[in-house]
């Protein structure tokens, strides 16, 4: 739910990076954290296991700057991808303004991608949200791996992107595709907000 403060002219949006385990959701946030100047980011919080697998979520607040006169802030979250963290994924997804689905491009992970994508739709439906109305961007990560191990963007698109949403090949470890993905989800979320269709908390007060 976007939080809009008309008095201080601030917009805050929640973006959730979703996808199967080890697809690169946390890596996306780490890359963004490493690129963004200190004065435009908050502290990154990671609730992880001792082996650095996401246990609950990663959280990164970003200050996007002024957009149409509004100071625009994005709060980026990841969910734990492993199948048995279903309950926590559902919790993190609550109130999301947009979702980035990070798919693992490895051919042997196709089933995991599809299962996780179905899991996303089921969790949204459980919250009474029609998945078709939620801003969504797909990222096909690990496209830097050897060609014989991965599926192409076209193959992944055929398998997952039946809604025809924006999609990006990426190598989140080194950066390609990370910026484009964030730019795209920000654009879709803000377009929805500008159209007045976002079911957000709308406040008209002072800070």
């Amino acid at each position: 739910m976007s939080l809009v403060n008309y008095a201080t002219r601030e917009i805050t949006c929640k973006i959730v990076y979703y996808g199967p385990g080890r697809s690169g959701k946390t890596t996306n946030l780490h890359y963004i954290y490493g690129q963004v100047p200190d004065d435009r980011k908050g502290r990154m919080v990671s609730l992880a296991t001792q082996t650095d697998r996401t246990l609950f979520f990663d959280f990164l607040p970003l200050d996007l700057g002024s957009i149409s006169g509004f100071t625009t802030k994005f709060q980026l979250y990841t969910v734990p991808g492993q199948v048995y963290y279903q309950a926590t994924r559902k919790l993190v997804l609550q109130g999301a303004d947009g979702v980035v689905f990070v798919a693992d491009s490895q051919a042997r992970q196709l089933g995991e991608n599809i299962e996780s994508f179905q899991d996303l739709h089921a969790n949204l439906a459980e919250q009474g949200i029609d998945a078709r109305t939620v801003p969504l961007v797909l990222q096909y990560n690990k496209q830097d791996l050897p060609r014989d191990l991965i599926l192409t963007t076209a193959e992944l698109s055929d398998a997952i992107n039946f809604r025809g949403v924006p999609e990006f090949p990426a190598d989140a470890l080194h950066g390609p595709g990370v910026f484009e993905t964030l730019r795209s989800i920000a654009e879709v979320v803000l377009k929805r907000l500008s159209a007045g269709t976002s079911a957000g908390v709308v406040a008209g007060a002072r800070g």
Partner: protein
Amino acid sequence: MNIATVEPWVEAPLRRFVDDARARLALLLHPSGQVIAQAGFTREVDVMSACALAAASHATAGELGRRVDGHAFRSLHYAGPDRQLFLSPVETARGAYICLTVFNAESSLGLVRIYFEELCNDLAAAAPPLPAIRQPTIAADFELDLNRNLAALFGRHHP
């Protein structure tokens, strides 16, 4: 105590609560983790991280309660050596919020709970109904601003 709010009707009840309960810090947040009001926070505590963690903790307790007791656990209390926290939902006409209260030895859980009930009543009474019409908030041609800002964030050239 320094109080900042997104919604003005929250300020007076929250100020009264932190004064009466002798709380050190208080946060009112949306269940999705967005801050609605903060009292007493300084740079030593990161508000946004605290909100994200409080929302997660509240959601986790609720879900655990539903699984083991058939009902969501509503309130939480954690005690550290110097500071304690109390986490509980608040229902208003504007929807449900979560309140995170941090207190030390100057107060007690009992005192916080007593005044928290008053806070719930005060907020329920003060909350205006949701506005019927939501205006579009940003211009349709925001893409230029967005692209320029993101390019700056990532240290890229934007034409």
